[in-house]
């Protein structure tokens, strides 16, 4: 073998020192969007530990299950049972499954809201370009959209099932979209209330319990009052009472605006009451956001 001409062995050592960053820096809008997406994913445990996926995924599954069954029955036994519409109306479904929704909101609101306050991680956010108010609004948005997904997913399932069962497309589409609008309102109300409670009781366990109590107790009390007022023939009382639980409130709004099937004992009657319901909904959402902004203004970096 011929020997190659003498080569000196060579090597390179790369500098692993600190490297400055000269790349793009995203503005507040892009950062807020990224923050929104992270928050949304985190409520379903995506981007977090496996343990944090368990509860939300189970709840999502449990939300879909009844819808799946209903759809199955609809498709299979439509002719047998002479069904020409959804077994459970779209707008009623969230009320029926409200326990699951409440549990979801109660579990995830503290994760999104209380956590940063409890560990004072909020300081690290405040020291960054995104403004305090943007932080609050984005957190609220993430929670709202996450809740919306939970409430609307089964509705979508029902809609698809309805189409498969050859229910009238036009009618079903309208009803579905109305219910989706309702789902959005419900999500916003629930998210707002839960976020405010979580921002005030920053210990996670307490916050979860507090949200559950607020949502469950309000519904129980309202239903009781509505039942009693119905019996006693004083519908008005029951109707007004309905604005004090998000579930009855939003259902009432849908009854007023879209004339959906009534799911409460004393739904709003008449324009005045209907407008009261709409106003109360807007107030709930805006009031919650305002309360959140005020609460966060007191946070010291």
């Amino acid at each position, binding site marked *: 073998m011929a020997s190659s001409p003498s080569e000196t062995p060579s090597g390179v050592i790369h500098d*692993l*020192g*600190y*490297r*400055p*960053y000269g*790349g*793009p*820096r*995203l*503005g*507040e809008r*892009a*950062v807020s969007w*990224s*923050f929104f997406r*992270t928050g949304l994913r985190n409520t379903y445990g995506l*981007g*977090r*530990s496996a343990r*944090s996926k368990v509860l939300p995924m189970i709840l999502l599954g449990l939300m879909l299950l009844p819808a799946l069954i209903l759809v199955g029955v609809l498709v299979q036994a439509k002719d047998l049972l002479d069904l020409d519409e959804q077994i459970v109306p779209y707008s009623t479904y969230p009320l029926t499954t409200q326990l699951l929704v409440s549990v979801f909101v109660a579990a995830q609101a503290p994760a999104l809201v209380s*956590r*940063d306050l409890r*560990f*004072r*991680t909020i*300081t*690290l*956010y*405040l*020291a*960054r*370009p*995104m*403004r*305090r108010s943007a932080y609050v609004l984005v957190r609220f948005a993430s929670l709202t959209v996450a809740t919306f997904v939970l409430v609307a997913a089964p509705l979508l399932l029902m809609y698809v099932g309805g189409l498969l069962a050859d229910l009238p497309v036009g009618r079903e589409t309208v009803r579905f979209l109305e219910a989706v609008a309702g789902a959005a309102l419900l999500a916003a109300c629930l998210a707002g209330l839960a976020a405010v409670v979580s921002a005030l009781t920053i210990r996670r366990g307490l916050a979860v319990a507090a949200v559950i109590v607020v949502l469950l107790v309000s519904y129980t009390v309202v239903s009781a009052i509505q039942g009693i007022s119905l019996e006693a023939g004083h519908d008005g009382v029951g109707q007004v009472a309905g604005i004090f639980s998000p579930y009855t409130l939003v259902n009432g709004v849908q009854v007023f605006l879209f004339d959906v099937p009534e799911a409460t004992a004393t739904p709003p009657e008449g324009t005045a009451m209907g407008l009261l319901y709409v106003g109360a909904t807007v107030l709930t959402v805006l009031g919650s956001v305002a309360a959140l902004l005020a609460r966060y203004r007191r946070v*010291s*970096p």
Partner: protein
Amino acid sequence: MAVIETTGLTKTYPRVTALDHLDVTIGDGVTGLVGANGAGKSTLIKILLGLVPATSGGATVLGHDVASEGGLIRALVGYMPEHDCLPADVSASDLVVHLGQMSGLPYAAARERTSDVLRHVGLAEERYRPIGGYSTGMKQRVKLAQALVHDPRLVLLDEPTNGLDPAARDDMLGLVRRIGQEFGIAVLVTSHLLGELERVSDHVVILDSGRLLRSSATTDFLHATGSLLVEVQGRPDADKLLGQALVDAGLTARPAGGALIEVEVRDETTRDVVRDLTVDLGLGLVRMQDRHHRIEDVFREGVAGGVQPV
């Protein structure tokens, strides 16, 4: 260009004046900030980050006005808070990537820089474990990493050695020094431990009740007093023996606490005299150093010539 500049900066709260017409300029390198009143330091940081409005006066950070360009400032500045601020259920890696994005870095850049920055602050595989299980030293490193991930031009480090054991404190101080010197990032570090600031900062700013007490290069604080501190050993009365011998040789010497002798330097032969007398007396020379002032001396001087109790 000054890194930080305040003009007549004032912040009053109902019961206390945190900052009182503060005029100070802070430049590159490592600047130490000491306060004789807790409220002033934290208020100053909040104002510099554009999070709290001043009552009167103004300030600029990296040339930007804190009152109108807060967001821009916060994109260029890193802040390491004094208090606990780390969630327990995420890993250092995930947290710093997220915060890097929150500072405006695109995801890929945030990931890369996080990996590098965690290496620079000295976190190894533990970076993948949840922060809840970290020691204080590791947590401080994470706090520092999140302040550096977006390559800021200035970092504000608030009591970075809080709660650290001596070895960890040494490491942290070394890191602070590296940031100022090697990384080319201006550093404002607060501490109530003056010895640390002497070691780590090029420049020291002293606040007292919201006002500027003094702002000088560290070397100015530590200037020599013109005396030597000498320590000898070999017999129980070694210091007295040498002290007397020095006096007999015409030098000014006095006891300086412990077994130390303070000797006034008369000329360049003074040190030789100390050396030779030590040998003649059969003693051992343990120490011969210039006696320096210390930053602490400023506090002993006080405003009216005496130590004011707070």
